[in-house]
């Protein structure tokens, strides 16, 4: 029964979306422009905002909880109500663009860059890995003030050693990271050449790029 209802809503939603005329579409884009201006954002993103709203409505058809904008009976009564529904989606997304500020401070861990690079390539059971971690934590306990010990202990006991957990405070976590980097440098394990991100494998092909060549990198992907 629920599937039938969902199917009905999808069909009705699709019909109403297909019935939007050029004039109505222009008005909706103008509405998007107005919302952007209201929030002090670039007005040229009005088309993008409108399309994001349509995408959200289409995602809502799938009926997956928490994804997209879900239409209800009120929205699907007639076209006027449906246009209001689209306007609501635009308003909501513009509000989200403006208000949902987030800080990287809210992330509860930081990656220890040097350790990350070294450990990713090695198996956890490998003797070099075990030696490296044993020596690192031994020196950390020796050199760190006692206030950092809870963070070091939590890090040592964590399953993913490439991330330092935040147990007491961010300040302590960052201090542990700095100290670990210093110790690793002392152990003569330094970066060689330019740092490569984790997704770059040693055998991958890289090529030199010019500013002109970068113009083609944003080709549509296969989705």
């Amino acid at each position, binding site marked *: 029964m629920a599937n039938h209802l969902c199917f009905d809503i999808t069909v009705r939603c699709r019909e109403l*979306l*297909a019935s*939007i*005329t*050029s004039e109505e*579409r222009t008005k909706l*884009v103008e509405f998007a422009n107005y919302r952007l*201006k*209201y*929030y*002090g*954002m*670039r*007005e*040229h*993103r009005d*088309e*993008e905002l*409108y*399309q*994001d709203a*349509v*995408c959200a409505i289409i995602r809502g058809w799938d009926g997956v909880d928490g994804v997209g904008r879900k239409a209800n009976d009120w929205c699907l009564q007639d076209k006027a109500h449906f246009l209001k529904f689209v306007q609501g989606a635009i308003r909501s997304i513009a509000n*989200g*663009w*403006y208000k*949902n*500020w*987030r*800080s*990287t*401070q809210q*992330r509860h861990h930081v*990656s220890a860059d040097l350790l990350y690079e070294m450990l990713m390539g090695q198996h956890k059971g490998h003797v070099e890995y075990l030696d490296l971690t044993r020596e690192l934590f031994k020196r950390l306990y020796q050199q760190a003030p006692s206030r950092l010990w809870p963070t070091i202990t939590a890090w040592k006991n964590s399953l993913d050693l490439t991330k330092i957990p935040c147990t007491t405070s*961010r300040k302590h976590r960052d201090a542990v990271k700095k100290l670990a980097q210093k110790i690793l440098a002392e152990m003569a394990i330094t970066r060689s050449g*330019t740092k*490569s*991100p*984790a*997704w*770059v*494998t040693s055998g*991958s092909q*890289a*090529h*030199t*790029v*010019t*500013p002109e*060549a*970068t*113009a*083609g*990198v*944003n*080709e*549509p*992907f*296969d*989705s």
Partner: protein
Amino acid sequence: MNAATAKLGPFFTTSEIQPHPGKRVHDLGIVMTWGKPRQEARLYHNLRENAPKAFSFDFVSIHEDDAIEDFDYQPTLARETRYGTFFPLSAYLAKLYELGNVNRNIFSMLAELDNLLPKERLVTAEDDKYSPISSKPKPQAPADPPTGLLATELEMQGFRITTVSPENGRVSLEIDWLPKPGGRLFFTGILELRQIPAGISGLWVFPGPCGVNHLLQREFQKLCASPNACLTPAGIKHCFKGVSTQTQMSARHVFVWPTICALT
């Protein structure tokens, strides 16, 4: 170490394109370097789901491991992948300048970035694959906005008015910074002005997205003493065409630039 040299940068150079970290995050083959000892970060393009062909400076990103400072960003401009989060570059640049970790002229830095990045392409009606109607594509904004509207010193520095929206006795101006003729427009802010008998009062409409636009707004305010002085007589005539002069001033409007408050 000399304190000034410790803050050199940021500089941008092309490098080898590395494999893309994901379908929706592409490596741009550009590396940003700053400071002494040298810090570096690779630049990526965070592709939009509904318009992968579009390119905007707002969607240029850096990887979380390259960001050494905590900073505020817009989550809609960030992308989470299995390799970590990619944060908007603009917000990170603003933070680096705010902390004083870099000391390069903001205009030189953005001009260099403009040269290296792919050409700007906004989302247009052509990208709308969901709309069944064959609506006419919206005409694009002219490549070079008109000149002679802003005060001479502002226009010499590259500031331009790109959009004028009159409404209820006031006018909203979109101010952008143009590094060179035909270059990309870096968003500075929306300036709301009202013409009153004593002159022109105005303010920036909200702080807008956190990013380099805050730095550009600061530079704009340095060059122009007050909202009253930012338009030329021709600019006033052009912008306030058809707008009635209001005797009552909005409480928010001021004669001097307001302090831009940080978002909390």
